[in-house]
């Protein structure tokens, strides 16, 4: 169970990105995070693996207080949290296999990894994971030779190398065409269900939300404005989440 309690984030420049957000995610659930641009979705996800330090509040995963670990403990906590990104964030000039293997960096002997040596078992797993996301034949290509959809599959394979218990996905399909978007979402959903991985996935399109998520939370200007099943988002709820903003733009 992931527990977020009274989480707030104020950036150094004074921007209040999250205000007193609390929610729980049971293990193995696929939770979508929706909200307008700037509502704090990325901030929320990044607080969980501490790419951003929360200002106030607590985040717990099982017995670990994610919000307050530091140093070695933080690294050990991070390696159990996979993350995939809207812009894939692959190392373009490295081969696909190296990108995937880098998912093991939190586990392997640091000195050996720095010299490019990974245990044979990890290399085998990297190839298996590439097969699993359907691009086993691209292992030795440079990452920048792949298409967008293929890059995101590499991103998933890299995250899977971490043996993650949680998967954070920040708009994983926002730079892909609709057909590809569905195929990637399906893959993400299937794999995480198979491995019983808890997913937090920020999304912009409600049809994706309704099709793939078990539950939804919605943010508006950093506040949690909705928490429930995807099909509970009727027209009225939709207005709660997006309406105020829409009026202001319109």
């Amino acid at each position, binding site marked *: 169970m992931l527990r977020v309690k009274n989480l707030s984030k104020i950036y150094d420049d004074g921007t209040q990105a999250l205000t007193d957000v609390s929610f729980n995610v049971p293990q193995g659930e696929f939770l979508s995070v929706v909200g307008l641009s700037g509502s704090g979705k990325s901030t929320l996800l990044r607080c969980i693996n501490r790419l951003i330090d929360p200002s106030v509040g607590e985040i717990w995963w099982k017995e670990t207080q994610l919000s307050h670990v530091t*140093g070695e403990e933080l690294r050990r906590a991070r390696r159990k949290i996979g993350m995939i990104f809207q812009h894939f964030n692959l190392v373009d000039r490295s081969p696909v296999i190296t990108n995937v293997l880098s998912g093991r960096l939190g586990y392997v002997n640091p000195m050996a990894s720095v010299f490019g040596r990974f245990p044979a078992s990890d290399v085998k797993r990297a190839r298996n994971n590439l097969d699993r996301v359907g691009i086993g034949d691209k292992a030795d290509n440079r990452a920048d030779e792949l298409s967008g959809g293929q890059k995101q599959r590499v991103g998933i394979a890299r995250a899977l190398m971490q043996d993650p218990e949680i998967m954070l996905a920040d708009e994983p399909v926002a730079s892909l065409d609709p057909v590809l978007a569905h195929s990637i979402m399906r893959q993400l959903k299937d794999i995480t269900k198979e491995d019983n991985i808890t997913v937090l996935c920020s999304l912009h399109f409600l049809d994706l939300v309704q099709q793939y998520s078990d539950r939804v939370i919605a943010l508006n200007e950093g506040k949690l404005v909705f928490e429930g099943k995807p099909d509970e988002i009727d027209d009225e709820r939709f207005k709660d989440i997006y309406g105020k903003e829409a009026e202001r733009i319109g």
Partner: protein
Amino acid sequence: MAKRGKKEQLSPGMSALRTVLIAVILFLVYAFAVQDTQINLEEPLDPRRQETTIRVLRALARPNLFTFNEEIRGMDINIRMPCGDEIIGSQVSLGDRTTTLSPNCVTTTQDVLTLRGEGFRPNTSGIIRWYPPGDVSTTRALSSFRTDGEGNFEIEFTMPDVRPTDEPQRIEVEEKWQTGISGLSEASQITLEKITETILLALLATTVGTILAIPISFIAARNLMENFGSPLAAVMSAIIALPIGYFVGRSITNLLINMATTELITNTFVQLVIAVILIIAVWAIVQFGVSRTADGEPETTRDRIVSILQFVLAAILSIFALAYLGQVGLVFGGWLESNLGFLGFIGGFLALASEFFLIGAPGIIGFLVGLVAMSYASRFGQEAVLGLPDGSSRILSVVVTGIGTAVLVFGIGSSLNWLYVFDNPQNWTIIPAIAGGVLGAVGTAFIAPKRLMPIGFITYTIVRGILNLIRSIEPLVYVIAFAVWVGIGPFAGVMALTLHTVAALGKLFSEQVENISEGPLEAITATGANAVQRVVFAVIPQIVPPYIAFTLYRWDINVRMSTIIGFGGGGGIGFVLSQAINLLRYRDAAVMMIAIAIVVGTLDYVSSRVRARIL
């Protein structure tokens, strides 16, 4: 936006006034600049100066590149001293050549003689010589000539001396012309030798400079550094650990090298065998370590201690091995140097490298151990402070900060004392250290012990500052200082250029690190990678092309700088060029300038081509 709007609102009158004001100020600045830089017209238009300038330019235009094969052809004509009653001319023919001398005698040194030649080699220079009677060894030059397109010439001259004899005296008309290039002039040979030295000087400076600049550039990159925060106690533990680690590392290395260089084993072959055995042992230990920890099982404290012990053992054995290798290298290098003929420099290099290791290792290894100790101490300090309850962590923080401040102040005081040699050093070292320690401890009691200090940002700022300072002084200035230390010559040049290269590349490189895309770095951080892994997996792949490009660019600059660094005593082509100019040997100087132009131009072209391809 707001500012723009305001500007546009300026009334036309105001705007015109402002333009005039700017124009007046600019005029004043330039007028003063012209006066201050002593620009004038008298000096350059002075005929004497112009003449000298033209002479220099003409010399420069005829670089002394080659030596030539020469052909000489002479013929004699007689002259009488003094003149008899009848004054007539005389004519001599030899083959196609005819020489006419009129008159054919002199009585005083004022008598003007006319010499005409026909049928000589066209457009050829020659000289006229007199063989004074009774004086076999010397000749006196009378005049020189140059034939026209038909091979004719006519000159007038007077005799420098008159020595009456009964017999006619001999005058020789000699033509001299070049039939072909026989080889390189001495200037060219020196130029070749020195330009090679220049290129190698730049190569060494660039290589060493780049190697040193790479790690520095990571420390000087804001995006990598600014997120590092540590509690004060961790920072202070690191400060305490540095000198301790340094002295321990240096002493142990010294001890090991002394043990290895005792009289016990003097046979070079046995030393070599020992070194090889030690290296195999180190390799085995490292292999064992990698295979044991690579399976990804969570580390226990026991594992950690075993790894550290392994590392220490491997390090000690490596130093031992290197100490033996160093001795072998000294002997073997010396032997090669005297037996390898012109390849002897290989042996020299081997011997020098061995010597460098044997002398430099304690300091360098001490420094490295200091760094390792720093990193362990800061990690340990951080874990302790963050792990302890508030009260105890505050006490720990106060104690450690007190000691740390004292060490820091003592270090600074000792350096100052070393530099200025104060009368009573304890006023600068121990007393301020104790005072500083107490102040630091008291101050720390009032701040939250677990607060993170922006130590990364502070380090970044200091390193950047130092780089900027070093970079702002030209290598030509450094070389003067280094020439004092290591003597005039290319070695001083290498050191000056290296220093500047480290600073310049350190800054350029770190800016490249700051320009990398954050995404991959974020992704690698999210996998739980540590700082070194992040650099290796997310930063280095992104910076390889610009690093290569900047290194080439720097090598290009260094070649250019090394051509002038000799003017400051740094060896290379600049040194001989300055000599040639000072000795007014402009034709030699011209050869050197051509060589510089060719080398710099070629390198410029090659490096820009390679850079264009990489980026």
